[in-house]
């Protein structure tokens, strides 16, 4: 069996070249923070990123370890994401400043449509119709179709060169389990990229995870890295966003 276990996050992202399209999992938990920092050290630039947010979030600032680190370092050419402007001045991050200044490109996609486009990309689907965005600015110039009396917009799948994801447990074949809300976009992205790299809390021998409890089959996973103990490894911390 091909060895999928890499000794470090740096080794696992070493071949990512300039101009690559990369999916980044995560919605708070589930963010592949170690792989992102390795990519930052590696230096690849002119990248296109696909992720829920272009860094930041409620109570999260420029110091957060997420795709925002790559944006601050000017490695990203474009982001495909669900928020392209902070809704409050207290939430402004590097992406917002670069986007308002026209220094980074972005495609703004509703969150359910983003998830479904990634799902479609990993499911061999050529496109789908959704009612999300009908009658809004996002519908301008797009194919609209009435199906059973309701209007829908045509959306196309998303695929990437790499998916950087985070899971809780992997076996040596790459079968993955996620814990709690860590799951979010990760299983979808694992299926929609040419090369999927997963950082995990622990790696167990193949056969250890009950087949009924595998969330992502190892078929979709190419590289696995165990997160080192802190301070070398970056682990989740308590988040305390304001209520409003």
């Amino acid at each position, binding site marked *: 069996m091909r060895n999928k276990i890499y000794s470090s996050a740096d080794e696992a992202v070493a071949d990512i070249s300039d101009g690559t399209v990369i999916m980044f999992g995560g*919605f*708070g*938990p589930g963010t592949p923070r170690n792989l992102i920092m390795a990519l930052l050290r590696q230096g690849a630039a002119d990248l296109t990123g696909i992720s829920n947010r272009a860094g930041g979030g409620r109570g999260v600032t420029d110091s957060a370890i997420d795709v925002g680190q790559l944006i601050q370092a000017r490695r990203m050419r474009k982001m495909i994401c669900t928020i392209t402007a902070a809704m409050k001045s207290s939430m402004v991050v590097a992406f917002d400043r670069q986007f*308002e200044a026209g220094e980074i490109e972005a495609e703004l996609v*509703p969150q*359910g449509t983003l*998830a479904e486009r990634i799902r479609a990309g990993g499911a061999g689907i050529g496109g789908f119709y959704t009612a999300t965005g009908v009658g*809004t600015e996002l519908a301008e110039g797009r194919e609209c179709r009435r199906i059973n009396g309701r209007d829908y917009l045509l959306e196309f799948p998303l695929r990437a060169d790499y998916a950087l994801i985070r899971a809780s447990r992997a076996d040596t074949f790459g079968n993955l389990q996620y814990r709690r809300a860590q*799951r979010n976009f990760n299983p979808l992205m694992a299926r929609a990229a040419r090369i999927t790299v997963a950082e995990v809390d622990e790696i167990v021998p193949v056969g250890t995870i009950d087949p009924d409890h595998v969330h992502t089959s190892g078929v979709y996973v190419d590289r696995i890295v165990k997160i080192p103990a802190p301070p070398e490894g970056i682990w989740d911390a*308590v988040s305390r966003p304001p209520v409003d």
Partner: protein
Amino acid sequence: MRKAQLSRQAMCDRLAMEFEDGWVVNLGAGIPQLCSNFDFGDKTILFHSENGVIGYGPEPAPGEEDLQLVDAGLRHTTLVRGAAIVDHADSFALIRAGYVSATVLGAYQVAESGDFANWKLPGRRGGGIGGAMDLAIGAQRVFIAMEHTGRQGELRLRTRCTLPITARGVVKLIVTNLGLFEVTQAGLLMREIAPSYTPEEVQALTEATLIVPPDLRPFRFDERREEAER
């Protein structure tokens, strides 16, 4: 003198009173999240969060946070008995297919037609859609919780939205710091009014023409909360 307006918690308590036993409810980040502080008594409400948490509970005590468990606002949360975790595509399938009984969202503007705008401000290149457009077209009922006027005094309840809209004709009920309003075929109906305000005073702060019914009621507060705060 500035009159007493409804608190954000009172606004959200009022919408929460509308929730029925067995409903699946999705609360937007910010003010709407206060709806989950309401005491639902015998009613079972299942709170769904867009990141795939079906059945979240109260905030954990400090020190008891689960590092991999947050709600849509990235606040640490807990799971209730019977909760389930799904991925993002599954979570939004649930939303679009109408399994969410009601969503409570914030807004910049709501029109008498039920259109609303909550993702883009004037003069900004970017916007923040998040899950709002999916919830707006997918949830069985869309409720809005917002301040009656903007920071610069902008009138937010309008004949038509002037900001880019989130969805058309979907809003059913709006709570503001001045009262409770219902979108009806005939227009915006004022159902309840904040204490110390007259209908004329609320109308002066509203661009759309309000329908004031003969049985306009005082705003309903959660008496148990008032009792507890006394």
